[in-house]
């Protein structure tokens, strides 16, 4: 994962140097990176689907399981709770869009008749904070879900479902964590020296990453939680 963040950050030759496409190097690198990440999640998700229904013992995701001792394990996935966390993550993408817009509009004078919403839209700090907060909330939901599952008897070692589920969603959670840290460092830069229109690209790249992680979650939520 380490190299990933770098590809987005290494201040290449773009600002002062000629580029063939006119785009910044970092913009191209992040798209190449996202392409690679698609294959990473495709491999993880495929493995989950291949092993779906192959676990020899429970707990199972969508059906009840009774073990040899007669103990009953209810279907383990809690779809209402995860729907809420999914909604939170989706809203964070909206906040991310507003954060990028706020950075783009730096230096554009605020119209005299701007109301509270017009002013709020100009605060990149506010929206970076909201994005990071919603991301962290999603992680909180995930931490709750993981501990609840372990309490109910599902660990990494229990069965194929446990191994694939925790690894796949854990990988996604690690990506969200990297994103939250990334957003917090942008927020920190914004608070210390202020992000200006010249920083649009830096925020844009973080936003591309954030939206990607969000889109991956939509796929995971659909395939793992919603489809039985």
């Amino acid at each position: 994962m380490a190299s990933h963040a770098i590809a987005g950050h290494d201040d290449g030759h773009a600002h002062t140097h000629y580029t063939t496409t006119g785009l910044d190097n970092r913009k191209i690198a992040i798209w190449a990176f996202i392409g690679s990440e698609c294959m990473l999640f495709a491999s993880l998700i495929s493995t989950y689907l291949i092993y779906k229904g192959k676990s020899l013992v429970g707990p199972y995701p969508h059906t009840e399981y009774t073990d040899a001792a007669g103990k009953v394990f209810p279907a383990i996935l809690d779809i209402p709770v995860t729907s809420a966390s999914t909604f939170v993550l989706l809203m964070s993408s909206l906040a991310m869009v507003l954060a990028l817009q706020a950075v783009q509009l730096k230096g554009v004078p605020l119209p005299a008749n701007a109301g509270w919403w017009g002013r709020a839209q100009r605060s990149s700090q506010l929206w970076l904070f909201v994005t990071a907060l919603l991301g962290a909330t999603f992680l909180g939901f995930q931490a709750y879900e993981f501990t609840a599952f372990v309490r109910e008897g599902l660990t990494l070692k229990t069965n194929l479902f446990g191994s694939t589920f925790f690894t796949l969603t854990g990988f996604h959670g690690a990506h969200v964590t990297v994103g939250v840290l990334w957003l917090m460092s942008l927020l920190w830069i914004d608070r210390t020296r202020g992000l200006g229109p010249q920083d649009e690209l830096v925020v844009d790249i973080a936003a591309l990453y954030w939206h990607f992680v969000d889109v991956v979650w939509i796929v995971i939520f659909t395939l793992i939680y919603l489809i039985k």
Partner: protein
Amino acid sequence: MATIAAPARAAAPASSPSGLWSWIATTDHKRIGTLYLWTALIFFIIGGLEATLIRTQLARPNMGFVSAETYNQLFTMHGTTMVFLAVMPLSAAFFNYLIPLQIGARDVAFPRLNAFSYWVYLLGGIFITLPILFQVAPDGGWFGYAPLTTTQFSSGPNIDFWVIGLQVLGVSSLAAAFNFITTIINLRAPGMTLMRMPMFTWMSFVVQFLLILAFPPITVALVFLLMDRFFGTTFYAIAQGADPLLWQHLFWVFGHPEVYILILPAFGLVSEVLPTFSKKPLFGYNVMVYSGIMIGFLGFGVWAHHMFAVGMGAVADSIFSLMTMLIAIPTGVKIFNWIATMWAGEVRFTVPMKFAIALIAMFTIGGISGVMHSSPPADLQQTDTYFVVAHFHYVLFGGSIMGIFAGIYHYYPKMTGRFLDERLGNVHFWLNFIGMNLTFFPMHFSGLLGMPRRIYTYDAGQGWDLFNLLATYGTYLLVIATAVFVWNFVRSRTRGAVSGGDPWGAATLEWSIPSPPPEYNFAQIPTVTSRYPLWDLKDPSWHEGESSHGDTGTPGPSPLTEETETHTAKALGIPMPLATAKPAFAALGLVVMFSGLLFLRNDLFAVAMTVTLGGAAMLIGGLYVWLTSPLE
């Protein structure tokens, strides 16, 4: 060799910094390319020595030269070393050195990320290689089939080194691939359209996409294995209902594109060598580009032909068989186009040209036996026999290694300002060519006679004895050939004939600047108007009556000139990336972080956590100071 008599110019700019630190801190793509080249050649020699021990053990029936356990480590490390530590990085040496020069750029897009890739490669390579000295080297084959490699069947630390080492090396390849994709898309000189790019750059471009798309599946497969081994997950636990083919699918989804990752750069190199020494443009440039892309594309749809023997069923076998046969078409196109390039040309049989022609011939043999495997009934007879070993050594040694040697002889004058000795080069070529065929051709026969791969010894009287003995003699010839090459490679740096900027009369941008190139590459970024700018410059009417070769005929604002003088970047006012060891430090942190896992095996949980967190702190600290310091 008429061209050697070119006027002598100053051999090397006196201003280039020297000393160990200047190499550790370098961000110059040419120096990083040189580091890749030297490191990969050392690993090539290590891998070759492992092969020599393997062949010595197999020279005669029932030899006791090495034990079965050592033998397993030797063939595993031979494959792993040659694929991940020798051929891929040898290609990376050329990516680094040549891509910016060929497209008219002053460096890669992310110079420090480039240094990071190299240091991760070096440290990861050492990590995976050192255990062989202590007899605990990986021993599960280069393909590391799980569940064989799970703790249940491989409880020692051997496989731990392999899993962790490959994971680390993957980071290096991925980081480099993002870098080169960006470089090729975004740092081409004005007028260097995609369809004017030199063929080496084109093939490298395709390879970078293969890397970014093929490495994630093996990363995931390795993560599963790592978690099975260290954290008790059940991905490969058959008793818990796991699918014994999961690893094979994930591995070969990576493994087959990997084959093209290994061969396409060599195809690119000979596509530079053949036109130069035939004094003709590359025949069918466009088709060469399309067939390269086609190979890359189809390469993702053929992985299961490595698995015909596992019983996937007739439908899957047929589809993968058909796809595999299809891939012979773009590959065959390339072979015929190279031959057509030489046809009626003014062919000069220099050493690089000989290696390039050897690639065409040897790769064709390996390609034909490959098409034989594409038929499942034939493959069922051949799989896991020495016939397969013969096949993939014809494509990897006869293809990749021959192409890389062609590239080394061709570009050594550009890299050092001096020629490799032609006489020693000829000795190397012929010993290499004869040695290669003597080693691998007999394996076709021992394989068809039923000799299985990966066995450490065999009984006499099965008709395999002669073929094995011949193969072993061939390997010894290859050892001598490589020794001659190393002597030549080291000696010519100071003793070789001075080459000048364009010793071969080549056509592409890298030859328009002095040898070795100054740190800034091009004093003025050239404007490109055709695929063969230097030939246009020397004789504007050279291609009259032929197709246009991408020529627009209108020189741009800064037409190409041959640069013969070397200045410092400072004197010319060209900003260059600063030297910095931060990427090397971050790379060290990454490797330390991963190596902490090793201690989990002995339940040294506290030690493992200390090492891992210490490494992570080094990595994050290194990244922080790296990202917050200015590039140039």
